[in-house]
Each structure stands twice: as C-alpha cells, then as structure tokens.
C-alpha cells in the first residue's frame, strides 16, 4: 500500500507537460492571429481552462522571473509575462488527442466551480475575487494529472466508484492511499504558486484544516458542492456532499444567501454550457 503511494508520488512528480483541450488552443491561436490581442481577451480564454491557467501561473512563479510564490491570478501573470510569452506557451502546449467524455466532464466541472466561486465571493463581498475563482478553477488539478499520468488506474477508480457508490475521495484513499487534493497540493507547491492557491486546493474536502486561507478554501469547497448539485460537468462521481460546518461558519452563510447564489449560478451555467459546446465543436474540427 505504502509502495503504491510512493510510486504515484514519483510518477506525478515527473510531470513535464499537461495536455489542454484542442478547442482552447484553436480559440487562442485565432486570437493570436488577430495581431493586437489585449490582456483582457487573452485572460478570458486562458481562465476558462484549468491546465492552461496552471501553466501560466507556474511559469510566472518560476525562479527565473524572480517573484516566486507571489502571483495568484492569470491576469496578473499576463501583465508580467506579456501576451507574447503566454501566446507561445499556449500554442506550444500539447493537446488531448482524444476528446473523451471524462476529460470534458472534468474540464466543465472546474469551469463551473470557478463560475460558482466568483458568484459566492461577490455575494459575500469577499476580497480577492479573482484569486478565489482561480483557486476554484484549479481545485481538481490533482485529478487532471492523475488521469493523464495513470490513465488505467483512473479508469479503474471510476469503475470502483460506480460499483461501490462511494465518494471519489474515499475510493482514492482506499485504492491508492493518496487522494487528488494531496496530489494537487504537491503539484502547486512544486510550482511555487502562492499559498492563496495552495490551501484551497489542498483542503477543499477538509476546510477545517485550512489555517491561513480558510475563507478562500471555504468558498472553493462550497463552489465544488454547488456545481456538483447543479449537474453541470462530471468530476468523477455523482455524490453531492454536505457543505462542511467549518465552511458554513467561516462564510457566515444562511439559507437565503445560498438560495440567491444557487439561482444566479443556474443562469451563469447556461452560458458556461454554451461555451463548452463551442469549445467541443472546435475540438471536433481539429481532431
């Protein structure tokens, strides 16, 4: 058991490149051809994709630029790296060769969580909204990498989840002695991303453990739960957990606010769905 964990750590630490959805790359390339593309336009496309956002944040926090652990949003990264650097980073990304249902499901889930986190942060008037939605976008990056690096294990995992009707995180621990939150935490730590992003990724299933960034972690947790409840995307299981008391308390939630959030989320997810269809059709053309 311990061996399996060690092996997974080794395999994941060895990650060099993460593939992105082909539709995202097509969209960015067409933006790039425009010649004069603005930081805002570019940021909008990049922030719709967890992998590309992770790459951009990894690069801007790398020691070469000299502000490791400081930059936590894509638009700030774009200002510091420059549109050209991000453009070439995106275009040189590897892409998923097969557009498979689970890949799209996970991508939609992350996008939906970012949308939800943004709404929650706005309704509750929290500072650093962009940081919060970035953390939500990246919260399941551990799953993405697990799926890419250990594809057979991931398929097996999904089957076991279906059979036993258990939450994904419990199955992960049972099968591999490690879960996606922990994997995500290793990754973003090794990429020298700021704590603002690390804690919500590490503790979105265990809000109590978050010390310095509990509000952000709580929002990401709630966003994760709400998106799953909405049925948008597929994160690996259909299990909707309860909102943890620590999150409820930290954010000072009540039924009324939550209702308000949910109704706005439903409207916004319609847009996200349209965007997703657009990306999928572009991906189809390229494949």
């Amino acid at each position, binding site marked *: 058991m311990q061996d399996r964990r060690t092996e997974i750590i080794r395999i994941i630490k060895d990650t060099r490149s993460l593939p992105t959805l082909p539709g995202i790359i097509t969209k960015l390339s067409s933006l790039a051809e425009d010649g004069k593309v603005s930081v805002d336009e570019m940021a909008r496309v990049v922030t719709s994709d967890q992998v590309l956002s992770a790459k951009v944040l990894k690069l801007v926090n790398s020691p070469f630029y*000299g502000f490791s652990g*400081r930059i936590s949003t894509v638009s700030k990264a774009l*200002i510091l790296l*420059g549109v050209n650097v991000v453009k070439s980073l995106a275009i040189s990304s590897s892409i998923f060769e097969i557009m498979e249902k689970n890949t799209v499901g996970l991508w939609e889930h992350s996008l939906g969580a970012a949308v939800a986190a943004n709404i929650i942060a706005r309704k509750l008037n929290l500072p*650093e909204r962009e940081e919060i939605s970035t953390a939500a976008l990246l919260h399941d990056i551990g799953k993405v990498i697990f799926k890419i690096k250990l594809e057979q294990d991931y398929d097996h995992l999904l089957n076991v989840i279906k059979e036993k009707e258990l939450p994904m995180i419990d199955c992960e621990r049972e099968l591999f002695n490690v879960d996606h939150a922990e994997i995500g935490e290793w990754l973003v730590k090794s990429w020298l991303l700021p704590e603002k992003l690390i804690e919500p990724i590490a503790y979105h299933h265990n809000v109590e453990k978050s010390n310095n960034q509990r509000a952000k972690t709580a929002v990401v947790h709630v966003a994760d739960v709400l998106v799953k409840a909405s049925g948008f995307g597929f994160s690996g299981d259909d299990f909707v957990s309860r909102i943890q008391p620590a999150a409820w308390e930290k954010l000072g939630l009540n039924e009324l606010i939550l209702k308000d959030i949910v109704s706005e989320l439903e409207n916004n997810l319609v847009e996200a769905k349209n965007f997703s269809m657009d990306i999928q059709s572009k991906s189809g053309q390229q494949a």
Partner: protein
Amino acid sequence: MGSRLRIALVSKNHELNTQMELRLRSKGYQVIVFSKISSILGFIYSDPPDVMIVDLTASDPEIQKLVKELKKDNYFSVIPVLGLLSDNMDELFDWQNYPLDDFIVCPVQYSELFSRISLSMQRIQRIFDNNPLTKLPGNTSIQHAIERALGKQMAVCYIDINNFKPYNDSYGFSRGDEVLRMVARIMSNAVKESGGGFVGHIGGDDFVFIVMFDRAEAVCKTILANFNIIISDLFGDEDKARGHYIAKDRKGHEQEFPLLGVAIAVVPTDSPKIQHYGKITEVAAELKKLAKKSQESCYVIDRRKI
C-alpha cells in the same frame, strides 16, 4: 560605428602579425600590434582597445598571464578577448584558467574572425551593460538609445517609484527587488505590446523607455493601470485594507505612506530646445517634480513648444 573598432593584436609571431594587421585594416579596423608583452597592460589601462586578439599558439606563459590579469579586473574584463589557438589545441585547452571570450583556430579563416569580432562586441554589450536584477539594458545603452531618438518624433519617458525607499526599509530589500523586477516587466511588456521601442534600467527605482511620441501616452496609461493591478500583491493584507503603510521617513520618524505608485515624465525628442542628451535629463527632472506633487501614480508630458 562598428567599422572603426580598435583592435589590439598580441603575438610574438611577426609573420602572423603582418598578415593579420593587413586583413584587419582592410576591413576598416584600427589595429595596434604588440609583440613586446611587457608594455601591454600599461597601454590597455590608459587607452583600452575595443577588442583584443591574443596569440596562444605558442603556449607562452607571459601571454597567458596577461589574459588572466585583464580578466581579473572588473573594469577591463569588459574588453572581449579572442584567443588564437592552433589546430586540436581547443580540446585540451584550460578554459577554466584562461577566461577567453571566444577563440579562433589557425590557420585563420578571416571571414570567421570578422564575424567573431562582431559577435563578441555584441555579446559583451549585452552582458555587461544589462542590469543584473532586471536584465534590462543599462546606462551606456540608454545614452545611445536617447541619442538615436533625438530630433525624431519620439518620447523619452522616465519612470520612478514613489516612496520606494520607505517601502524597501519596511518590507525588506528582497521585496523591494521584486517590485523593481515587476516594474521592469510591466514596462517592457507595455512597450512591446504597443508596437515596440527601447526600455532600460538606469539603476535603483529609475527606469526609462523610448517610444514613438504618438504612442507615449497610451503606454503610460497601460503601465499605470497594470502597476495598480500588480501592487495589491506587494503589501500585507492589513496594509492593503488600510490603503497605506507605516514606515520611517528620511529623518527617521514614523509616517504613513500611501501604497506604491509610479511617476512618469515624458520628454518629446523633436523639440528644437532639446539638442543633446543632457537637456533631456534636465527637462525630465523638471517634469518629475510636477509628477511628484501628487502622491498617486501619474504621468506628465512636456508639451511646451519652446
């Protein structure tokens, strides 16, 4: 400019000296030949050449010592030194102890030698003038860039950070360095994305960029806007919420300082009153005073016609 380079040729081989001097002169270079090693250092220190070609084929300890001496000295190590090596010698050569900038193998291919001379000049300029912190070109390059801009419809824009010293004192040097690197990136990207221009780092919190005059204002606006987005990550949560931070002023008294901002002085280069480099810095200093009156980020453009 490059064709009048002064090249010092150091070799005890008269045949080689004569031939190489001829070829270099025919290329338009000035050549000073040294066959007596003892006199070289003194000459170099008083009247440094642009490039040195040093004959190492004879493995002469005197010449080797000369190279070492020269490279030890911070100031003169800027001069590129090309070593002449004999065939096969490069494989065994002690690169560690004889810090050459480049080499060429005998028999000399002159077209290659000329390329290597140009290349080493470019490289040395790139390496030595650039600010080690921000990797932006330093004062030599800045002065050249300003001289090239004079009389054209361009603008020389000086940036500095308001109240940078108290920030440095309060948050520490490494945080201050981060701020400088960020300003450098923000400025470089804003200039590049506006269509290009020159950017340089004068030193400390002083930067300069040069763009076409009609684009200067837009670039200033971009820099100010982007700096304001980025600074939120440079302060602690409490300071950010308060909108100011406490640090010591020049006299050592604790004082409130607003969050960091930048001031930009924009000097058009086509005005008849600006004939030379010195005048630009003079006008910039006047504008800076104006820009500094407000504690917030701002830019001031000199639109006076006379």
